[in-house]
């Protein structure tokens, strides 16, 4: 009896030692991979930051209006966001590779799924960023054109354009991520259709006078008989 217990304990101890002996090298390899990953990620971050500063990306981002959106979200400058993102993506990739070295079957499956999903996440972020930049640029262009033409609802026009492009960008992002595809497309169609119908009805019913004034102004010229503005040159 006593011998059986001792034998059991000995076997358990042997198994434990064997497991530790087998696990420890893997664990050490994982730590080394993560540490190397950290160094590589830092290196990538500094290289990318230097390249982006050379290419004056922050200026382009300011011009496109993307920096304004980042500031609104309390995020740093564009070059900093991208270099930090590269750091985390790189290090995260190394962490996943390191974890896969441990050889835990269920973990490996999850890691491989995550790795497959990563490119889609990056593309989705790019789509969202481009959408925001385009929305800002076009809404600003529309605002300037409407203000300089003397339209009274310039801000509404600008916001409508920004809103529609944002919806489009968010829909495309969710579509890329594969999240509730059918629901997203249906929701987009409903929101977009409703917005357009609403605008059409609003202009049709509420804008009769505006349309009449617009046509009168362009077909008949100013009623006051006054010159609108002096010749600039």
């Amino acid at each position: 009896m006593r011998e059986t217990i001792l034998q059991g304990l000995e076997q358990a101890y042997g198994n434990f030692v064997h497991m530790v002996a087998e696990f420890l090298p893997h664990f050490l390899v994982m730590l080394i991979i993560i540490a190397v990953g950290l160094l590589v990620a830092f290196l990538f971050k500094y290289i990318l930051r230097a390249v982006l500063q050379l290419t004056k990306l922050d200026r382009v981002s300011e011009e496109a209006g993307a920096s304004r959106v980042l500031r609104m979200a309390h995020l740093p400058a564009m070059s900093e966001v991208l270099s930090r993102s590269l750091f985390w993506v790189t290090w995260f990739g190394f962490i996943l590779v390191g974890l896969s070295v441990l050889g835990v079957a269920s973990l490996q499956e999850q890691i491989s799924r995550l790795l497959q999903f990563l490119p889609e996440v990056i593309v989705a972020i790019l789509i969202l960023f481009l959408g925001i930049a385009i929305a800002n640029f076009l809404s600003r262009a529309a605002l300037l054109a409407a203000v300089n033409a003397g339209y009274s609802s310039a801000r509404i026009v600008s916001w409508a354009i920004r809103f529609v492009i944002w919806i489009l960008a968010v829909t495309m992002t969710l579509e890329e991520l594969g999240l509730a595809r059918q629901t997203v497309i249906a929701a987009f169609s409903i929101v977009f259709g409703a917005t357009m119908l609403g605008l059409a009805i609003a202009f049709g019913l509420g804008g009769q006078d505006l349309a009449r004034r617009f046509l009168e102004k362009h077909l008949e010229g100013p009623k006051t008989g006054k010159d609108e503005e002096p010749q600039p040159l």
Partner: protein
Amino acid sequence: MAEETFLSDDLLRQLVSVGEVDLLVGISSHDAVKTVGQVLRAIEQSFQQHFVRQRVVIVLLDGGEEREDTVIETIPETSEEKKVRVPGITSLRTIHRVTANFSTPPTAGIALRTILAVADLLRARACAVVSSSSSNLTADAIGNLLRPVYQEKFDFVAPLYTRHKYQGLLMRNLLYPVSRAVFGCGIREVFPAEWGFSGRLATYCLNTNVWHEEAIRAQPEAWMAITANCTDYRCCQVFLGEKSPPRKGSPGTDIVEVLRQTVGTLFWCIETQQQLWMDRDKLQPVPTFGPAYQLTSEPTDMDRHRIFEMFRSGVTDLEPILSSILDPETHAEIKRMVSLEEGKFRFKSDLWVRTLYDFAASYHHAVLNRDHIVQALAPLYRGMTHSFLVEHADSSPAEIEAANEMLCSEFEIQKPYLREKWKAKVEVKS
């Protein structure tokens, strides 16, 4: 030679048959088909009256479907033109006419580059570019553009015009004061419709690597004027008489389009020619032949209220854009002005100067898309216009000239402000 690469074979063939010339006048026919015949006759009369012995050529740039021969044939000579013609005087030389045909209307930059290349190839000593829409242009005026170059050895001849006191406010309140303060350029019309230049300057400009730039494609004349004035070429101004009004519907009547073409180009010149102005404070004097200014004041009825309303709504609606462009203090002052009643509103000259310098610095730092920066100036320009119309409703030409001189001085005094803003780092908050 570089120019041989872009001149067409047909044009080169015509140039070979012309040979070297003394005088050259370039004109684009596509932008004003109705008046081009009239302007061409004025050029020919000028050659017949003022340059009888010189070898001359007219370079016609045609980009439309209607060819110049058709255009000229279809426009009969008016009785006024018949009166102007001096009987018995005719050129001793053939008045050559060459046509550069383009499939589409050439931009102002392409048109000027072609004229410069032709001038360089034909070794022209004195050249002029005239606008086909300048229906008021006379033979004497064209002679006045060519003579200072041909006889007095000037390199750039800018025009001066008779204008109504409310015409040309962009020139008077923005383009001239800014170019004078920044570059020390004493040329009043930095965006002339017609101007003269020497073959020497033509060759220099032709060989400068700027022709691919968007600003030069759209409006190259300011760059040429500023380059001539700042690089020791001899410049002068001549009085040409009444300026032809822009045609209805042309870009010259649309303030935003005019701002994009002129202020955009001026800001581009400031941006790309820093070495010419950063350490320069001296005004380059420009000799003037004829009166320096001539203003008329027939009664006109401007819609001041609408101009003020467009200023007010523009400043309010563009607040987020203006806050990115203007210094916070300048922006706050402009917002305070918006709340004033129309009768009490005045755009003070020091504020106008700071506003423009903020715009120029923001253009340099590209805080927004550069075209958007220039467009955002339109409401503020309208505010300045309203202020001018109210302040100078009863002013005499001399009083307006004195006010313009004070505005120019204000721009010169505040130039250190531009330098400071120019060198400041763009704040990208993290």
